């Protein structure tokens, strides 16, 4: 049975270092939530507190309507996939997957059917009698996954489970994890530092830095409407420059920046004027060829310093006034290094962020 989860004011210190500083959030039953942040931001500590391996110094952990602070890890009915997979090296694949069923005193007669079902779910059928060291990294990952889901936990926990796989496999397995979680309807909490993984897999992303939550929202919002400079910078790439903002009328702002005077339309920005940061995503910048109309868009004029062909895009590193500007443009453009060029940026694509 899927369960929701609430953390209330969780604080954890290691000596003088505060790993988590009054962290609170709620997760709905069946939701797939990712904790995203750079290393050392406290995301793994938080996951280990949820699993019960660490005790918080302050605050409460609730699963549904049950307070879990004093419940030891083995009674929490969570199932965790470890970065190292943590397969028992002395047990076969079958015994590894069965372990949780034995611990939960599931009648032995049901074990084979349940294990086989779980193995079929992760496409492992036929490898029952292998030992973990006889499997490839991807297969070990699937065994860890099967071992977690076979016990039908209330909450699935993932601690950077894909970081030891190669890029292609990582993309494949993360789709499988997503499908499996949807099918079983189990609440999942997934820790990663890989922003593209977080965007691809989650219902909700909780972005963390220095032991605190910075933003909690769905992938589209967190990418398009980051609440701070840190998030804009951490998730995807962004051109970020300081600027002075004045509200013109309604949601239209006049922005004085190193790129020149720009106009921005930002419905969510609450202030009327002040010193802030300007954020332009490289893919929102488009080159304006001679004679092409620019309409209402802002025009930035600069020189291309580097032009890098990426296959799916053409990445331009230009200099506008004195400031570097990065643009990701359509791959079929031929723009040489040293070209003087005009870029267009739509008003609605300029975000104004607090520092």
């Amino acid at each position, binding site marked *: 049975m899927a369960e929701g989860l609430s953390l209330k004011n969780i604080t954890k210190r290691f000596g003088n270092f505060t790993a988590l500083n009054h962290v609170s959030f709620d997760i709905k039953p069946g939701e797939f939530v990712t904790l995203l942040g750079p290393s050392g931001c406290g995301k793994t500590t938080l996951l280990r507190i949820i*699993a*019960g*391996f660490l005790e918080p110094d302050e605050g409460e952990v609730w699963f549904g309507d049950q307070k879990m602070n004093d419940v*030891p*890890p*083995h*009674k*929490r*009915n*969570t*199932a*965790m996939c*470890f*970065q*190292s997979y*943590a*397969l*028992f*090296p*002395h047990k076969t694949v079958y015994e590894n997957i069965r*372990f*949780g069923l034995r*611990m*939960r005193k599931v009648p032995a007669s049901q074990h084979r059917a349940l294990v086989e079902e779980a193995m079929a779910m992760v496409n492992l059928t036929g490898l029952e009698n292998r030992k973990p060291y006889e499997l490839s990294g991807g297969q070990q990952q699937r065994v860890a996954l099967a*071992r977690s889901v076979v*016990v039908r936990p209330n909450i699935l*926990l993932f601690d950077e489970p894909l970081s030891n796989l190669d890029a292609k496999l990582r993309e494949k397995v993360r789709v499988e994890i997503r499908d499996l979680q949807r099918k079983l309807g189990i609440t999942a909490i997934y820790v990663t530092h890989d922003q593209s993984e977080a965007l691809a897999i989650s219902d909700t992303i909780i972005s963390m830095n220095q032991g605190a939550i910075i933003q909690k929202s769905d992938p589209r919002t967190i990418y398009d409407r980051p609440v701070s400079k840190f998030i804009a910078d951490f998730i995807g790439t962004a051109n970020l420059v300081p600027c002075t903002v004045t509200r013109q009328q309604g949601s239209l702002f006049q922005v004085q920046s190193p790129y020149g005077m720009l106009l921005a339309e930002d419905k969510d920005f609450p202030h009327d004027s002040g010193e802030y940061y300007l954020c332009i995503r490289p893919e929102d910048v488009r080159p304006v060829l001679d004679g092409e109309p620019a309409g209402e868009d802002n025009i930035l004029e600069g020189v291309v310093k580097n032009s890098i062909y990426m296959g799916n895009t053409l990445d331009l590193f230009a200099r506008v006034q004195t400031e570097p500007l990065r643009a990701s443009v359509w791959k079929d453009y031929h723009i040489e290094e040293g070209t003087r060029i005009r870029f267009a940026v739509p008003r609605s694509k300029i975000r104004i962020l607090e520092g």
Partner: protein
Amino acid sequence: MEKEFSAQLTRKLLRYLVPFAIIVILIAWIGVPMAYCFLWSAVDPDYPWSYPDPLPQKLSLFHWRYILENTNILGAVGSSFFIAGCTTILSFLLALPTSYALGRRQLKGAGFFKTLMLLPLVLPGMAMAIFLGRMLMKMGLSGTYTGVILAHTLMGVPYMMRILVVSFESVPQDLVDAASNLGATAFTRFAEVYFPMVLPGLVAGSIFTFINSMEEFNLTFIIGLPTVKTIPTVLFSYLGESFARTRASVVSLILLIPNLTLLLITERFIKTEYMGAALGKM
């Protein structure tokens, strides 16, 4: 072309000749003394082997028969095995919880305790034997099997702990966490994760302790005599107190055979890292 070929040949020869030579030297280094020991144990008393004969004139099993029939060597073999067995079991029982605590619990001062546990191996054996003997005498255990086993265990526990602490330390924390995450209680975690993972270390530690107890001389000599006799103390009576080469050779072989057989059978279990753990950082 010719030159290159000969250089290559020299290199190949070196590659195979040097290890071959080293193995030959090693066999001579260990094998010749062993062979001589066999020869001496089989000298016929009617044809003494003396300078400058390189080999004895006649071989017989006279001294073997003499030792087996006229001395209680079989009793000494029996008590050696009995003492070594009891020492191993007792050392294992004492070392297991402490090794777990030192290897897994992040105790303050663990480094200090790890040094402390090596003391019995570093302090002078004869001084320890004599005054441990005095202490056991006060406890009324002098000349008893219990006393000898307790004393041997004092040497066995550090060996066992050295290896077990390393084994416990090398169990990945993730495995333990995974087990408790899947619902394993403290007892199950120990039985199903720790125990199988430290088993090779346990086997290696037991072999070390067993062989060590079989060889132990000082403690048995001081604490066990006159009642408790093991193979080394019998051997000493032919070597240290008086010098009877032929009989000493027989007893030496009786002592070596079980030890080396045990070593050969179990060499697979003793990884070099355990060897290093047991001996390296005393």
